[in-house]
């Protein structure tokens, strides 16, 4: 077959749009943040203390010391922000140590900080699709870079049942109406209780997301009191690998149309 006229959207871009659409239906907005992060947003504010074994859960690409004050990162693409000089200036990173963000979770912090600064209190409902980095050897299931989608919901009364309902809604829309999920105990420092979410494919359960109720220390870090929340995060590459039977995560970043052109839109 000869391909004519229309090009092909990268499967990850397509997935991000689908995910945004599914969560948009239940009131979640898209938010984003910089790929270079400071240690505070990526770890400390998320209740991962310095010199703590929980930092080993994510192999980090640290950057050689740039003059951090002079480094400007993207302004947050906050939903209510329209134009203005502030967004052009961007955010200055003050923290000493810089890194490539190991997860999209720092955007939880940045979003809440910005909202509170603007005097906007919860409820918040956001999803954060974006690229993340891990300093680990690459193979068919590990890449130094991949995409995650983070979700954050903050309100007065929030329970694990809300989390279950939201994640189930997503997986049913994304993988099909027969999708089943289950919760297992797990640990992510920025949630308590911490949950691992498995999704059933045929007769196999596959680990698909980390989740939980937002740890009070995270709210403390941004200065928010009297609220609860849930958060979740999963690898978009992994969703696609499972959905389409893609055997190797490295194909996503190969720049090879033998791969990309299989995804027809």
């Amino acid at each position, binding site marked *: *077959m*000869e*391909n004519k006229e229309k*090009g092909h*959207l*990268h499967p*990850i*871009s397509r997935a991000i*749009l689908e995910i*945004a659409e599914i969560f*948009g239906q*239940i*009131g*979640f907005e*898209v938010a*984003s943040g910089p*790929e270079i992060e400071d240690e505070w947003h990526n770890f400390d504010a998320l209740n991962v203390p310095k*010199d*703590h*074994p929980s930092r080993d*859960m994510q192999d980090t*690409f640290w950057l050689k010391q*740039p003059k951090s004050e*002079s*480094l*400007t*990162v*993207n302004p947050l*693409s906050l939903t209510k922000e*329209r*134009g203005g000089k502030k967004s*052009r200036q961007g955010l200055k990173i003050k923290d000493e140590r810089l890194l*490539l963000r190991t997860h999209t979770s720092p955007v939880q912090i940045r979003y809440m900080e910005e909202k509170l600064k603007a005097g906007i209190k919860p409820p918040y*409902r956001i999803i954060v699709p974006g*690229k993340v980095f891990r300093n680990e*050897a690459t193979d068919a299931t590990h890449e*130094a*870079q991949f995409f995650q989608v983070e979700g954050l*919901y903050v309100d007065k*009364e929030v329970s694990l*049942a809300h989390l*279950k309902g939201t994640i*189930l809604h997503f997986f049913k829309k994304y993988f099909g109406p027969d999708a089943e999920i*289950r919760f297992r*105990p*797990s640990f992510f420092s920025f949630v*308590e*209780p911490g949950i691992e979410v498995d999704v059933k494919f045929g007769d196999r359960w596959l680990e698909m997301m980390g989740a939980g*109720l937002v740890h009070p220390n995270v709210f403390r870090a941004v200065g928010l009191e009297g609220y*609860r929340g849930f958060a979740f995060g999963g690898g978009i590459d992994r969703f696609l690998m499972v959905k*389409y*039977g*893609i055997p190797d995560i490295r194909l996503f*970043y190969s720049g*090879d*149309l*033998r791969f990309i*052109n*299989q995804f027809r*839109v």
Partner: protein
Amino acid sequence: MLVSYNWLQTYFKEKLPPAEKVGEVLTFSAFEIDGIEQKNGDSVLDVKVLPDRAHYALCHRGIAHEIAAAIDEKIVLPLKKNPNVEKLPPLKVVISDPNPISHKLEAESCISDCRRYIGRRVSGVKISESPKRLKERLESIGERSINNVVDAANFVMFDMGQPLHAFDADKVKGAIQIRRAESGEKISTLDCKDIILDSEILMIADDMGPLAIAGIKGGKRAEVGPETKNLILESANFEPTLIRRASERLQIRTGASKRFENEISPEVAGKAMTEFSALLADLLPEAEFGEVKDAYPTPARQSVIEAKINFINSLLDLKISEKEIAGILERLGIAVEIRGGGVLSAAIPFERLDLKIPEDLAEEVGRLYGYDKVPVAALPAAKLETATPARFYLENRIREILVAGGFSEIMASSLSAKGELAIEKPLASDKSFLRTNLSENLKTSLKLNAANAPLIGLPEVKIFEIGKVWPASASASAGEFGGREESHLALGYAPGRIKNKGIVEGAVKKISAELGIELKAKITDNAAEIDLEPIPPKISAPENWRPKLPPVETTKYKPFSTYPFIVRDVALFVPENISDQAVWSVIEKAVGQSADLLANHYLFDIYKPKGPPAGAAPVRLPVRDTQTGAPRAGGQAGEQKISYAFRLVFQSAGRTLADGEVNKIMAEVYKGLADRGWQAR
């Protein structure tokens, strides 16, 4: 962590469920199981203990407690006989804490270098091989047996989670001192590595110098060996951060350092010394045990968490009774007292350093009650008009425009061989910087895809990428990074069968026109790079903007062959009334059995002469019957013809195809066409 099923069984009076079942119970109540291995009549479970529970669960007793709580059984602690205390020479222990560590993490946490040091003399020991039972226990979890004393220390560590050590008492001169090393002090470790120490490293020392790197590794000088007669036993507790930093810096990771860096309650040191002594007394009936010397400047206090029953239930969205919640917590060894007003007060066992706030109790209740019982609830209704951030809108609008214009999207690595921002510990030398542009990767991808264009069926290659880059800013002075993170778009073109001009420029113009904003592109060699940063403030997403998402046709990904491919084109004239499909079915039939080598095929040209142009001979093929050489009916002079050109791409899934092989297939194709009286051009 490896956990022996037979070892766990020693904690239970009743027979445990089979190992697979135990694994399942743990999976849903506490820990993921990475695997179960059958080994010499035992089952070894690989239990994934995450950092929150590593305080108490990096040992068999911790795991046994979890199983007991999950299946609502009681733990039976094995009865051990404590040895009598004999009068042995006194042992002196001196903890010299420098200034308390400055990075105070939590107000209530103890920040001394050494929170507790328990020493005990043992005399009249005989070093020998361990009995079979002890060896088997250690070997089941992959630990090498060394001798009875060392094995006993290791056994108690894997049993209780408390690292222990034994020194040869006759080689220790003077008091046991716990102090920071002086810069330049040296130690030769048990595995004969010479290490130079400094003040960031805590030592166990005597009057002559270092005996051990505290919490990490023993030293050679007072090693327990075959000649050892007298021991000094150590059960201690060190500051987790200090141990973690030292072990990272020295690149020495041991079972002890792993447990200390995860923090252990100093209370465990006391119990472990009792167990260590009892086990040694059992192994060495002749040995005499001195008094327990316990330096414990600030004893740990038991923590109490107060939580409302309603709060726990509301996090889980369950209605568990007060009594049942208390029952679940008591299964974990938590002493619960119900106060008035639906408040419970939970006295936390010392080793459960992970339990600090009411939310932690909610997790304990939730996981043991069962997360499967948590209901499914929808979020309260919210305003459904969600706004789309300008950046997200912009990038996806550009994708929409480019895809409609025949461009395909790639994503490449953010790491590259050169750049402005360097990675501290890169994975590879060509990935040691953050990329400063997208064009470079795009050009590599253009080359790759141009080479594969016939295989993929691309008349030309048009690709783009949208992603973050980190270029230097113009104002940056040498050696300093003064740049910023920018969102860029790059698009590129490589000619294939079709060669067009101005594709890149045209695409940039098209995007500018559709967005109504002039894009500034840097164009080099058929690729354009555009900084998107200035755009978002100038545009905004329409109210309730939704991307247009046509249904995906793809259901399953098909792996592609990476072997070379061979291209053959077939062009022929046939009578006008013959369709291309009719011609293709003849070719397909001729390819026959070799169809699995036909990786792709397509009609790439149709040419229909519009009658004989004035002054030129009509384009006509001399089509003859191959059998007789006589003109066939279809070859009548003056009949209208049509020309089809097909491309056939051959490739094997498992090997490199030879030219000869493809020539043979093509010979069949030409024959098949000729049989119909069609001659390939």
